[in-house]
């Protein structure tokens, strides 16, 4: 998918949690206190210098940032342009997901939460969540569609090796959507001591904004690296895959490169 760098504004979340027509916080009243607690605190927590120091140090020393920006010469020749690859696959655990889970587990700790619940599709977000839970010594429960569990067994094994409890979501289509429903239900049943680390762009406000802030590190690095290599910090095009997962918020923050979030 391509997105041009035309000026956009709708990626900026409104004070009520909307992006233009979309967004909001359509959650059952049972989750209102949890989401409200998060909404009232996340900006202050993220802005706290102690949080910033811990977040950036973990990204450097644990995740392995910055990830390289690689000039793919042969691909450039083939497509007729200059193509750089931002190597998020070189992050610890093999995906950009960990940028977000590091940020969220630090938020969860500051909210006094003792347990983490998460949903996962292919398993990358689940692995990234299980990893940060192991790092911080928090209990971790990951819901995964039972069909996805069969398809992505190595990731299931990896989460379990990291100490997470992986629970099959057997309702509905038994894939990511249903894993998300089950994780929500788990949160309803455990509202006080549990934080839900959402990895996909499906959650209520402030999740999409929070995830976008934690992932904006990617676009920050791209700007600096591209400037060093080409003298221009803005690419003409940004190409990324859009699945069920957390890629869109990064795209939005890349297209809003003038904003420094975290």
């Amino acid at each position, binding site marked *: 998918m391509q997105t041009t760098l035309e000026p956009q504004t709708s990626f900026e979340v409104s004070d009520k949690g909307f992006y233009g027509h979309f967004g909001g916080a359509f959650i059952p009243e049972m989750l209102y206190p*949890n989401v409200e607690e998060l909404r009232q605190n996340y900006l202050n927590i993220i802005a706290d210098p102690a949080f910033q120091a811990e977040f950036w140090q973990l990204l450097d020393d644990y995740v392995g940032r910055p990830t390289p920006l690689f000039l793919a010469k042969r691909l450039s020749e083939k497509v007729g342009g200059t193509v750089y690859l931002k190597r998020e696959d070189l992050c610890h655990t093999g995906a950009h997901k960990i940028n977000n889970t590091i940020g969220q587990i630090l938020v969860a700790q500051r909210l006094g939460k003792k347990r983490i619940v998460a949903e996962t599709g292919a398993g990358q977000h689940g692995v990234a969540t299980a990893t940060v839970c192991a790092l911080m010594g928090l209990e971790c429960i990951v819901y995964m569609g039972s069909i996805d569990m069969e398809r992505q067994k190595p990731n299931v094994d990896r989460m379990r090796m990291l100490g997470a409890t992986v629970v099959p979501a057997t309702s509905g289509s038994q894939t990511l959507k249903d894993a998300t429903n089950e994780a929500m239900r788990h949160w309803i049943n455990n509202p006080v001591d549990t934080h839900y680390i959402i990895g996909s762009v499906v959650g209520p406000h402030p999740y999409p904004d929070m995830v976008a802030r934690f992932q904006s590190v990617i676009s920050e690095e791209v700007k600096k690296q591209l400037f060093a290599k080409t003298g221009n910090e803005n690419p003409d095009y940004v190409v990324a895959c859009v699945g069920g997962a957390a890629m869109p918020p990064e795209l939005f923050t890349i297209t809003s490169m003038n904003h420094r979030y975290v």
Partner: protein
Amino acid sequence: MTQEVTQNRITDLFTHKSERLLNVYFTAGFPNLTDTVPILSGLQAAGVDIVEIGMPYSDPVADGETIQQSNDKALDNGMSLKTLFAQLADCRKGTDGDPVTVPILLMGYINPVLQFGVENFCQKCQEVGVDGVILPDLPLDLFLDEYAPIFNEYGILNVNLITPQTSEERIRFIDKESDGFIYMVSSASITGSVKGVSDTMQAYFERIEAMNLRNPRLIGFGINNHDTFDKASQHANGAIVGSAFIRHLTEKGTSAESIRAFVQTIRA
């Protein structure tokens, strides 16, 4: 608006009855597509005070397994809002047996309602004689900002939920902004997932009772037999039974006799 609301069957009900009210939930189009109106009539004949009809949805996050499965089955059967309104179209007229006079609530999630169109939905509710709705994932603030005038215009009540985690300040706000009754979720849970009334639940019931809210209260989630109905009714105006009735329909069938037997065991 005021006049419409005073004609509402739910507000009317609470003006002449305030104790041991029984609200029974079932999913539209379950177990078979055409079971909706016969079950509704059966519940009325069995003497329940309010009937809550579930609008099936693929992602009912506040519901446990029993109601999830009934939703899936109903969707497989082809149930939709359009079909539901068509089924309910004549129930108040009594062209097909006794007219239905019991207050009717529709319970479900906001997504299908938004797809249907909120105004269209309220208009249809009024046309077929639905008195109110329960939409757990419709945020109250958004309702007040965007939809309250539409609901008022068609005389449709929006029933709000409170839970043991709801702050006193928010309960006061919800009480101020609610008409009809307040739906007290009995514990931190999804539907059908608790057994019995614990001391914690009892304490929560007493705490809310002592707040002297302006709205009547019905307690739901985990009310599944005479004992839980009785305990809930001691601290509220009545209770709501859902999953237990769905299980009964599955195990004992949908006949009027079966429904009557179920209601009798709850009320005893």
